[in-house]
């Protein structure tokens, strides 16, 4: 119907040509692409900075400030997981001793990855865990965020032996950690991710806690 209206209004004939249509669509696509590129460039630095701030804030939540006297973002090292992926480890140094480490662990949630930052003291106990990013169901799975629920604080002070291996699961699976009503997959993924993080600590304990002096004076060898 709208077609008839346009024809009746005596628009220039060229508007009916295929070339005009294609050019119009192509032109819009190019403008759209240009806008997105400009938007990306304009916001990239700011977003990166916000991310670093967020990271530092999250690190501050899982590593108490009294444990370290260094800049957490500066004293990081790169390790390789069993599956070949790389993990950045942030280390809290007190003098030259490693008081605690923090690194990101990832769980397979109900709607994609759940990224967590996990802080572990030098005896292998969880100092704290916080969710960095997730896409779980609002109102159900988002209780893993500390702003919405205290659930994630249950992990504080836990270690691989506490609870036992079987206890590192949600209650529905015979473990010690609560699930949420309506969302079992989400807390299950978090429990599994944190346990994996502790196992990673256990396997790389020496490398993680190696005195900072060696790595600072001879960075090449540390690689």
């Amino acid at each position, binding site marked *: 119907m709208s*077609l008839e209206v346009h024809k009746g209004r005596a628009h220039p004939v060229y508007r009916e040509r295929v070339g005009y249509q294609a050019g119009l669509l192509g032109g819009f696509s190019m403008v759209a692409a240009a806008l997105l590129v400009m938007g990306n460039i304009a916001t990239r630095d700011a977003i990166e900075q916000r991310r670093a701030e967020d990271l530092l804030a999250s690190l501050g939540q899982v590593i108490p400030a009294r444990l370290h006297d260094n800049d957490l973002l500066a004293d990081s090292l790169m390790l390789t997981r069993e599956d070949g992926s790389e993990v950045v480890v942030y280390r809290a140094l007190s003098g030259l001793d490693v008081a605690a480490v923090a690194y990101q662990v990832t769980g397979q949630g109900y709607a994609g990855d759940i990224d967590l930052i996990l802080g572990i003291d030098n005896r292998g106990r969880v100092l704290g865990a916080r969710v960095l990013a997730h896409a779980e169901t609002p109102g159900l799975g988002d209780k893993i965020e500390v702003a919405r629920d205290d659930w994630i604080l249950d992990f504080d002070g836990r270690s691989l032996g506490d609870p036992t291996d079987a206890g590192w699961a949600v209650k529905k699976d015979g473990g010690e950690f609560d699930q949420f*009503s309506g969302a079992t997959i989400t807390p299950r993924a978090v429990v599994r991710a944190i346990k994996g993080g502790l196992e990673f600590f256990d396997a790389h304990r020496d490398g993680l806690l190696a005195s900072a002096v060696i790595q600072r004076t001879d960075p090449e060898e540390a690689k």
Partner: protein
Amino acid sequence: MSNPYARIARDGLWDNNVVFAQSLALCPLLAVTGTATNGLGLGLASVFVMVTAGVLVSLLRGIITPQVRIPVFVLIIAVLVTLVDLGMNAWLHDLHKVLGLFIPLIVTNCAILGRAESFASRQPVARAAFDGLMMGAGFTLVLVLLGAVREIIGSGTLFQGAGLMLGEAMSFLELTLIPDYRGFLLAILPPGGFIALGFILAGKRVLDARADRRAARALDGAAPAA
């Protein structure tokens, strides 16, 4: 109803409401309305995109031909939503942390495309902007209503997390209506959303039917006297 703006407002908020009358935008609607706060968040973000999309489409209506209008509208809306997402992430970071989840969902809101197609592409800019505002407000109304119903039945609270989204000043909105309530999960899950929406739609029809009857009675009563 001679004033076109009053007509637009009435259409957007009630008569031609995105959800009540057009049954559009059900995907984002049912996905986020577990709580009233989430509903409000998506509503506000949608209002912004609907107004901007309306203005852009109305401005460009002279050069867009009917044959390629749909892809062009989709492109405009998608670019808009992406830019909003990027901009909020960079400069309104705290708000983005709460609303970020919903921004991409706006793209799935076919009501925006619908209004671009049926209204903004045929109307002057001011009217298109106002239509976007009113349609968005109508959508927000349903989002908050449905969110509130589901949240009260589902968890016994209202506007939980409002302080988080709107700033501490608004945390007085957070109410616990039913203390020690164990929650009714169905209301929060998607099926509960459909059921609650069904009741709300039925309620709207009852109200409309009553208004019609009253109008008819008033007409009957007036006729003999005249």
